[in-house]
């Protein structure tokens, strides 16, 4: 920080100095993420409680999902988090070019994730697994589905759609910063913002790391 004191922008009106502003920004993002944990947490707890009640049906539901697509997506998202970590590091060192490059890699992997997720939704539509749209009590192979498989699918869609929505917000943020980072001096001014975006992106990643085993891999009652 000290070596770049010359380019350090003045803090916002309410802060004494840049260090205070940076502390506030970081703490703010952590507090927000704590709130987000409870946001996802209430859905996850509901899923687990229903799973305890209907282990057979929920295991059957998990088997209907394409676990390998989920696994690929996990790898894609972990890769994007790595790129994001590099972007944050580059912002620390104030190398705008590297920030932009790594943000674009992060965003591309994020978009690949969403594309795979969309494909998966398409396959699930094909398998008549989408509640309220085309859910059918009979699987494509002719076997009768347990009635609570539908409940599993509701949780699956709520959780993955909520997660995808968070990804979209993250992608928007990444896009805006990647475009603005071309301006001279922007990266130096926006270290806090890039830090916060990084924290957010890692959080969204971690949520998926929990969702993947809970939805796809619990295939036995």
């Amino acid at each position, binding site marked *: 920080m000290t070596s770049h004191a010359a380019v350090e922008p*003045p803090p916002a*009106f*309410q*802060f*004494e*100095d840049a260090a*205070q502003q940076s*502390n*506030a920004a970081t*703490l*703010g993002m952590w*507090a*927000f993420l*704590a*709130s*987000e944990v*409870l*946001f996802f*947490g*209430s*859905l996850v*707890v*509901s899923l687990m*409680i*229903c799973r305890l*009640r*209907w282990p057979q*049906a929920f295991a059957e539901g998990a088997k209907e999902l394409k676990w390998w697509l989920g696994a690929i997506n996990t790898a894609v998202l972990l890769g994007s988090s790595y790129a994001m970590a590099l972007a944050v590091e580059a912002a620390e060192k104030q190398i705008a070019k590297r920030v932009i490059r790594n943000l674009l890699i992060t965003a591309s992997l994020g978009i690949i994730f969403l594309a795979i997720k969309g494909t998966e939704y398409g396959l699930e539509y094909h398998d008549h697994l989408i*509640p*309220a749209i085309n859910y059918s009590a009979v699987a494509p192979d002719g076997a009768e589905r347990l*009635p*609570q498989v*539908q*409940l599993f699918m*509701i*949780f699956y869609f*709520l959780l993955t759609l909520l997660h995808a929505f968070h990804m979209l917000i993250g992608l928007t943020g990444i896009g805006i910063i990647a475009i603005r980072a071309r301006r001279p001096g922007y990266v130096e001014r926006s270290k806090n913002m890039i830090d916060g975006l990084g924290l957010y992106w890692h959080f969204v990643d971690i949520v998926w790391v929990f969702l993947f085993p809970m939805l796809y891999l619990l295939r036995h009652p």
Partner: protein
Amino acid sequence: MTSVVYRPAPPKPSYLAAGHRVTSWLLTHDHKRIAVLYMISITGFFIIGGIAATLMRLSLLTPDGSLTTADFYNRLFTMHGVVMVWFFLIPSIPTTLGNFLIPLMIGARDLAFPRLNLLSWYLFVIGGIFTISALVAGGVDTGWTFYTPYSSSFSNTHVVLTVVGIFIAGFSSILTGLNFIVTLHSMRAPGMYWRRLPLFCWSHYATSIILVLATPVLAMTLMMVAVERIFRVGIFDPALGGDPLLFQHLFWFYSHPAVYIMILPGMAVVSEVIACFARKRVFGYGFVAGASIAIALVGFLVWGHHMFVAGMSMYGGFIFSFLSFVVAVPSAVKVFNWTATLYKGSISLTTPMLYALGFIGLFVVGGLTGLFLATLALDVHLTDTYFVIAHFHYIMVGGAVMAYMAGLHFWWPKITGRMYPEWAGRIAALIIFAGFNLTFFPQFLLGYLGMPRRYHSYAPEFQVLNVMSTAGASILAVGYVMPLIYLLWSLKWGAIAGDNPWKAMGMEWTVSSPPPKENFATTPIVNEEAYAYDTMTPQGGGGRSIMPVAIKPNRGGA
């Protein structure tokens, strides 16, 4: 006392004078102006919720409830509950007094995130518009608790619209809590250690923890109700494998801590007012501060006491009953410490003090009857009766609203620069106290005798007590209209307040009334604990405050 010395600077225009255009208010980032915006909005919601309550009480004058139909009565109590809980009580003290005072009390120029603060007001208003439009479109009849499966599968009223409004307003709560947490951690002036923090700030810190951690659960729960209604899926529908009781667990996981969102800021105000008008240090400062945090944390573990008769496990009932008794301990610590603060104090019975004393008395009644309800066997008899209604109104109205009134009067001179008429204030405070007790004490008796809540008609033998209650409500209404009139009157004709009319400690009293836009001309340095009233001379001159202290030059002289 948080004594402060700051370099004499040319007087700055007050925050009220810093721009007169409408946009200078609607786009302001100033925490003080945002507090005023909130104050105006929640007053509007209080009036709406109050009108619903008035109609209910009028309908309950006669056993057959001839004024309203049963269906309309259901919509009235839902409207009253939804508006009062989410659009008045939860935002009441934090977003008005908390918003206005926290930066002033800790020596900051604003909250950490001023734009977020404005955003949270807009979210609050947008949420309010959704909910009010649902009420205008015909209302909701589920009760404020939205119990499933009635709300998700059966009610044919505007559940989704209402729920969306609460969902949006929920984000306003989360952002406010987040802002307070970050501000209290990172914006304190030099020397304002945690041990010197006014108890007002401690309580708001505890409140903010709940706002940030409980509100998202409500948001998700209500979203599930909306999804279930719109897409006809079965999260809470047993026919499809869902669990209606799961809704109650999730709902009360938020809504019980929400009770502490409403009462902790009230305790925040009372600590300040009691210390000032007893001219004494708050007894056991550390315990009062710690009790706030303890209430916030233990408050997360007691939600099951709303569900003793809902079909929960008996052993779960034992645990929740025990924990509900535990949470009474820090509440009692506060009450005892306020009382000990009064002991041998030089008490002046000003309007804020009358409200604060009223708070202590009514909170004790509300708290102790809460223990009745936390007792498993007794709860089977009292649950869903008027006893419950009386209990939580003693906490919500007798506690939270009285404290809001105390705080409003106490800091009114600071907020507006004008004094309210003291005699009118005292009379209104006494009228409210009398009207409140006449309204709600009979309801304890009604509940004990077995009158169930949420019914629009009742057995004729309950009529006398119901008439008393309605008579009390009309007195209460007079008590609420009075401050509305004289406070508005004081804006133009009230006496000029001066910087510190109560000779109170606390950094907010060291700046002019109303405070300048940037709060402090120079960043203050705090060299004393809070509430050092014993160092003050009878004339109000601070003993130690004249000690020279270092002054940190403020950046840019802002």
